[in-house]
């Protein structure tokens, strides 16, 4: 991840879940490119961050994986499970509240003086 990774680190799982909610199923490289495109290159997810997150989400039952033979190799696709879909809604709600609170905390106070 990029130099301000500490800000994004806690959100990686939510980012992955949100993308899968919107796109159905995706594979690892596809996720990194989608994030890069959406953030105009601002956020680069490294393999060392992405795959541990994907495998942990799979082990926790949030994601399920299926493999397909594509272009001379095996590709692993991820999609949300039913539990994953519910958890995504929870996480997005939590993130929205977080953003709202942060905005309230950091926005400049205007003075009439």
């Amino acid at each position, binding site marked *: 991840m990029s130099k301000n990774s500490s800000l994004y680190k806690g959100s990686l799982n939510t980012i992955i879940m949100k993308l899968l909610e919107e796109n159905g199923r995706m*594979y*690892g*490289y596809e996720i990194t490119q989608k994030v890069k495109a959406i953030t105009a290159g601002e956020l680069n997810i*490294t*393999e*060392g*961050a*992405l*795959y*541990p997150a994907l*495998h*942990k989400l799979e*082990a926790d039952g949030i994601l399920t994986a299926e*493999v397909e*033979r*594509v*272009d*001379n*190799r*095996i*590709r*692993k696709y991820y999609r949300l499970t039913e539990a994953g879909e519910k958890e995504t809604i929870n996480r997005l709600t939590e993130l929205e509240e977080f953003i709202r609170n942060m905005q309230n905390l950091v926005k400049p106070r205007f003075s009439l003086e």
Partner: protein
Amino acid sequence: MLTKNQIQFTDRYLEQSGIKYMDIRYEMTDHVATALENKEGDFYENFRAYMVQHKQELLKSNRYFKKLALKRAFDILKDNLTKPAFWIIALIIFILGYIANQFNTPGQDIINNLEMISMILPMLINLYFLHYWLFKKDVHSVLMKLLLFMYFGAFVFRIPKMVHNANYLIAYYALYISFYMLLVQSVWQLNQQYKLRYND
């Protein structure tokens, strides 16, 4: 699109770099291959440049994956202990062993028979483990961790002959045999899942 040889080159490189388990290595191979397909120029030059930049991250993924595989293997072992089947099988073996022990005749020591069964089961597993480790081209992570545990468990969990109470020994062998029988079933099921998934 990369050629079959280029994919195999990538796969072999990752394996020699320490990414031994096929379930993570296939995914890394696809990731690297897809990244390289989006680059123009010579494949080997692009590959070299890619690895200079990304190899550490790929190995980091691999290290985490191995820890997760160990955890998943332990979860399978733990689940087997809480299955009703484990206790039912152990109880049946204990009852049969207890009854047989009441009718012990010289030369037909039930405890020695149970000990022999408890040695044969792990021996068969050890043979499979050695075959898997030495001859299987693609080794799956969780399966390997389970087999490793069973291989060493067979030596570690051998109760020394300081327990003289026959009923305690029968109970121990009943639990031991039941546990290994369920482990064999778990290994078999896992193997079938991987064959189905990876068309092995």
